[in-house]
């Protein structure tokens, strides 16, 4: 039997080398064929990025500009091609977003520029690039990160969108409110999606993003975008459906939103404007529940509903449908009072929220404490041709 002899690593400098003949195999194995769910990649988040960077360091150390170019160009094209082939696969997109970001952070962290190296350990500072200035490549990689981010948002929306209306509006979960729907309007949904299944989907997004090593700030922005879509889709549906505008539906919506708020608290991402994206929906739910009779009620509505436009407020009041003898339709005189209070508002007359809004996205520099020389490459990655 073959006996393996373990070489003692006495002085690994955090660099990796491969022979010219292994070049194509290297990009195929590390990028094209790599499965984002494999054990090998989940041990060290960002491992492919570190491996790429350690190879790049060797090419830089040996002053091999051709290899530096090949490494960067082929990495970018291979990543782009994986993302084109698996454009709808959330796992793949999240994985390469994390790794492209990490690779870009590495180019900065080891650039030797003071602004990026001030948090480095002395050992990390010894490992800065020697021969090449890769500022220009950082720009191309930043553009790639933006493209992958937009692709990730699209992937998530495609998965969430079919769940939102059923989970947030149609499903009734509060006991006692269930029977209060107007006659003829019961059981309009045939969808099996529930709030629980939507929260599970959000759980799955969140844990995958974390597992792949995406930066927390980036995850927060991804969630803000998804919460905005949940709010816009729910509110737009509410504004177009009479059967959704009742007191009990208001209660149900408020309950559902509070579940979403609780989810954010659980994950520690309630700050930075994420929770605020739900505000229009919270106010719509309150508008359905609040008293709508006298001048004081009208004033309360005008003061409270700052995240809804006048057009939206009037529409919800017009659609409001009593479902029992204790509730009343909104009177014409009450509508006039509200309209008078809202008439000076400077805002868009549009009824529906723009569900295609994409918030500006940033990915702040996030240096890594990982010591390159200590990284282990699992055998299962099939990169045994890489030499330390």
């Amino acid at each position: 039997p073959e006996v393996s002899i373990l070489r003692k690593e006495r002085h690994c400098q955090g660099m990796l080398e491969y022979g010219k003949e292994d070049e194509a195999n290297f990009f195929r194995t590390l990028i094209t064929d790599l499965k984002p769910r494999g054990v090998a990649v989940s041990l060290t988040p960002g491992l492919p990025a570190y491996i790429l960077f350690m190879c790049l360091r060797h090419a830089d150390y040996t002053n091999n500009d051709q290899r530096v170019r090949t490494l960067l160009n082929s990495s970018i094209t291979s990543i782009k091609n994986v993302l084109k082939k698996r454009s709808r696969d959330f796992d793949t997109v999240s994985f390469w977003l994390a790794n492209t970001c990490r690779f870009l952070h590495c180019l900065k962290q080891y650039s030797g520029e003071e602004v990026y190296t001030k948090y480095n350990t002395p050992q990390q500072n010894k490992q800065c690039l020697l021969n090449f200035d890769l500022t220009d490549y950082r720009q191309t990689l930043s553009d790639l990160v933006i493209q992958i981010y937009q692709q990730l948002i699209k992937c998530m929306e495609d998965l969430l969108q079919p769940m939102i209306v059923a989970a947030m509006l149609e499903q009734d979960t509060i006991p006692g409110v269930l029977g209060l729907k107007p006659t003829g309007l019961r059981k309009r949904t045939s969808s099996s999606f529930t709030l629980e299944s939507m929260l599970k989907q959000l759980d799955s997004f969140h844990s995958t993003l974390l597992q792949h090593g995406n930066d927390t700030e980036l995850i927060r922005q991804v969630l803000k975008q998804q919460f905005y879509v949940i709010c816009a889709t729910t509110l737009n549906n509410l504004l177009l459906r009479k059967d959704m505008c009742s007191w009990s539906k208001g209660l149900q919506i408020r309950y559902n939103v509070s579940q979403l708020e609780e989810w954010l608290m659980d994950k520690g991402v309630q700050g930075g404007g994420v929770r605020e994206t739900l505000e229009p929906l919270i106010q719509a739910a309150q508008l359905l529940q609040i008293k709508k009779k006298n001048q004081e009620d009208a004033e309360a509505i005008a003061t409270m509903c700052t995240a809804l436009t006048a057009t939206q407020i009037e529409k919800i009041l017009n659609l409001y449908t009593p479902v029992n003898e204790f509730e009343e339709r909104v009177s014409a005189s009450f509508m006039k009072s509200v309209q008078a209070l809202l008439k000076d508002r400077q805002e868009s007359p549009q009824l529906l929220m723009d569900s295609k809004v994409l918030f500006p996205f940033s990915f702040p520099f996030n240096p890594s404490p990982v010591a390159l020389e200590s990284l282990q490459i699992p055998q299962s990655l099939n990169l045994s041709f890489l030499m330390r």
Partner: protein
Amino acid sequence: LRPLPRPRVLLKAPTLAEMEEMNLFEDEDSP
């Protein structure tokens, strides 16, 4: 005194659009 670092050579990078023009990216539907 520490020796002054050597000036590094700036490597010009292609933009993503240039790479696309060079047909480096495969079509979405290709196997």
